[in-house]
């Protein structure tokens, strides 16, 4: 019996020497198969692809155990360029086309390893056959293509080497449902022409529809595997990834005096007609919603729906193209990021952004920056006032660490911490700023189920004890359902639904966004 085309055996991957991304992951892809790997953000899907395509190193990742075999040969010791020459090509997440190169030049770069002019011309003809729109726009810079066309270009670019195995990382990311279906059909077509496909998907419906077999990855481990039919029928997969019957936990509404005083009582946050464009791409289009003081308001939507863009506008990091955001009387869209923070708006980041070499305590103290007043000279001279202030704030920060369960880590440099702890430190830093409005950008991405339950408890506790408003950005629906009073659903940069968790969950538009057009059709039927 010939060896499988790709076999991943007991693979372990670690980043920065401390953060485990994959442990003991095994899977196989047979020639001519489409295999899907499903899982939420941070489950380790991308790390898996990078380990296979030997591209972990630039991201600080290393394989610490196990092996990857392609057509029977161990890939240890080969680099990304070797792997491509053997017929294994990865299409990266987020498409990553070369924006300043024309479509034709992008394809040329894709076919870089093909020396034979005839083989190359054939590959190009095949690609243009598959994606006629690219032939039409061959002389335009890649950056001017629409999102769907960019995804096609990214796939076309990889097909230029006529690979045996194509690795696709989240091809449906940020695409409208109709386009997702189209991409699915293209994957099937590519497969029919003889290329095996390993497909990474967050959109489980699309993944299971095109794949022969699938694996479910959760926080770096394979938790389920089987044929697509088996997995589609599994209750757990249906619940967690197909959005069926996520339980709605009613939040108890807490009123009363907060335990730690907020700077100011929270204000109403009004987002009105907000539009954001980058170059030719519209990331947000006329989004409006209101967050009442003291409530938890969730923004949900599939990856690429514009959630992070929205948080970045609220925090002052991005400028709005049109529309306005008011927090109380202040117009946030007119303010610089640090001024927004000065109003009592604090945030966390989707990709944790801490000073890695400093201790947890120092990182938390940065949150106190806006509340401390001693400037450069008193600090340099260690004047009594500055010392007193420093001491007082260290105590406050210790209290916050206590609240978050990281008090024992105060003196530890952040770079030695595990992922979940880092997330908590970032949350602590935001809380240290004594916010009245807290923006949480994907607070449980990459956490285990247990860890995210802990985080949910922490968020509840914070809201209860500090009496602030929280805007929670998440793509994990069940997590949000148990936390938020109001939910706004974004898709493709537009608001498609709003209401209580229960209302939103029944909304056909939401089902369509999460499950794809055909699945929504099934649900409606």
């Amino acid at each position, binding site marked *: 019996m010939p060896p499988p085309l790709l076999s991943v055996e007991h693979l372990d991957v670690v980043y920065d020497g*401390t953060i485990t991304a994959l442990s003991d992951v095994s899977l196989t892809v047979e020639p001519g198969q489409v295999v899907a790997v499903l899982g939420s953000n941070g489950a380790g899907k991308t790390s898996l692809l990078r380990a296979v395509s030997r591209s972990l190193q630039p991201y600080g990742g290393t394989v610490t155990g196990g092996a990857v075999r392609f057509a029977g040969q161990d890939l240890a010791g080969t680099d990304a360029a070797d792997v491509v020459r053997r017929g294994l090509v990865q299409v990266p997440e987020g498409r990553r086309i070369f924006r300043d190169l024309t479509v034709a030049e992008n394809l040329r770069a894709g076919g870089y390893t093909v020396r034979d002019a005839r083989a190359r011309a054939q590959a190009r003809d095949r690609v243009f056959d598959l994606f006629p729109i690219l032939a039409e726009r061959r002389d335009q810079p890649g950056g001017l293509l629409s999102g769907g066309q960019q995804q096609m270009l990214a796939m076309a670019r990889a097909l230029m080497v006529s690979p045996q195995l194509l690795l696709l990382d989240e091809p449906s990311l940020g695409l409208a449902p109709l386009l997702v279906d189209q991409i699915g059909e293209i994957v099937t077509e590519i497969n029919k022409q003889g290329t095996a496909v390993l497909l990474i998907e967050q959109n489980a419906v699309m993944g299971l529809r095109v794949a022969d077999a699938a694996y479910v990855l959760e926080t770096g481990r394979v938790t389920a595997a089987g044929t697509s039919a088996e997995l589609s029928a599994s209750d757990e997969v249906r619940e967690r990834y197909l959005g069926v019957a996520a339980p709605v936990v009613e939040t108890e509404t807490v009123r009363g005096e907060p335990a730690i005083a907020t700077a100011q009582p929270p204000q109403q946050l009004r987002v009105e007609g907000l539009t954001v464009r980058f170059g030719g791409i519209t990331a947000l289009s006329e989004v409006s919603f209101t967050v009442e003081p003291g409530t938890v308001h969730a923004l949900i939507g599939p990856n690429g729906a514009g959630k992070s863009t929205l948080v970045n506008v609220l925090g002052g990091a991005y400028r709005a193209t049109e529309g306005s955001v008011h927090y109380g009387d202040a117009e946030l869209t007119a303010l610089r990021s640090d001024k927004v923070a000065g109003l009592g708006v604090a945030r966390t980041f989707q990709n944790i952004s801490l*000073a890695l070499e400093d201790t947890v305590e120092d990182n938390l103290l940065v949150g106190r920056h806006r509340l401390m007043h001693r400037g450069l000279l008193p600090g340099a001279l260690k004047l009594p006032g500055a010392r007193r202030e420093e001491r007082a704030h260290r105590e406050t920060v210790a209290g916050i660490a206590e609240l978050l369960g990281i008090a024992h880590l105060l003196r530890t440099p952040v770079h030695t911490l595990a992922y979940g702890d880092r997330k908590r430190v970032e949350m602590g830093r935001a809380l240290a700023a004594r916010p009245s409005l807290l923006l949480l950008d994907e607070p449980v991405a990459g956490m285990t189920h247990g860890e995210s339950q802990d985080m949910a408890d922490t968020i509840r506790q914070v809201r209860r004890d500090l009496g602030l408003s929280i805007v929670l950005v998440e793509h994990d629906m069940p997590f949000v359902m148990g936390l938020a009073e109001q939910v706004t659903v974004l898709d493709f940069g537009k608001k498609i639904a709003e209401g209580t968790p229960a209302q939103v969950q029944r909304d056909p538009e939401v089902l369509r966004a999460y499950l794809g057009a055909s699945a929504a059709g099934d649900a409606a039927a």
Partner: protein
Amino acid sequence: MSDLPKKLAGLALLLVALALPLVLTDFWLQTGLFVMATAIGAVGLTLLVGVAGQLSLGHAAFAAIGAYVYAWTSGETTGSVAGLGLPPVVGLVLGVGAAALVGAAFSPVAGRLRGIYLGLATLGLVFVVRHLVVNLEDWTGGFVGRSVQSFALGGFSFSNRDPDYLAVAGVEFEGLHRLWYLFLALAVAAVWLAANLRGSRTGRAWANVRDSETAAAAMGIGVARAKAAAFVVSSGYAGLTGAMLALAYGRVAPDVFSLTASIDFLVMIVLGGLGSVAGAVVGAVFVTSLPLVLAQYSSSLPFLAAPGSGGLEASTASRIVYGLAIIAVLVFVRGGLAGLVRRRLTRSAAPSAARTPVDDGQPAAVSPPRSKETTR
């Protein structure tokens, strides 16, 4: 790790520095003066480059401003150059102030540019200041430079010109000895201030601006202002260095403050380890004393030839050693000398602190986790 060993080591060093003039010859005293002067500049630059993450190649320009302003304000008017004849202390303060002020004037640029980009913009400053120095002959003495008023404090002179006899333990305290203690006091103060600043609210803000401007701004830190402040502080330090160099030489001339001097300051802080105040001092010791020592002892070093004889001259040898040292440290030592020491200490403190081992045949570059994002 507790601060106690660090403090003890500092105290021991201070005692040694206090005692050294009793035993050193004039050559070593002079070398010590240059080392202490440049160490201050290096400490200021490490605040800017290592802590705030901004690159500056203009340090020599600010040192020049400090030196010339001191020379002009404290000097007397003579036939060739003008002077204000102010007390030297006032001149010193004005020198530092002027350098900081010019730094502040440059801060619109400093606040807007990042890292290397700022480094290149500041490169221009060196040439502009040099042009001014050469052309404003009435104040600066042009190409030849001007002599510098020696330092005095409340009638106590720090020079040989005014030999009110003073001896400690049988060693006569001449100008060089006196300057040694003046410089030592200034250097200790500068190091103390910088270390405080690094651990203060301002220092934390700078470090966060370096690591991520977006995150810093989201915590309420005014990014442009923080960068400009770091630039002003480091310019002030450079100004002090300039004035001290003027005192140590007894003259100022444009060539002392060339682009090479700027580069030397950068090299000091990189060799010592970016962001480390102690490292900057160690770097200054090496960079400043190497050429002086090699030149002084060239006759007793067999591989060096006398100047003009066509062999390897001391100045050439020291330049090459210097260049090779930069390369060697950057290629072999992570985090400069300070990083080396820190790793030693951590290792002896926690021998079992297991960093996850690597690997399956890939080049094992688990570089220090400085990546700003944590990816999964």
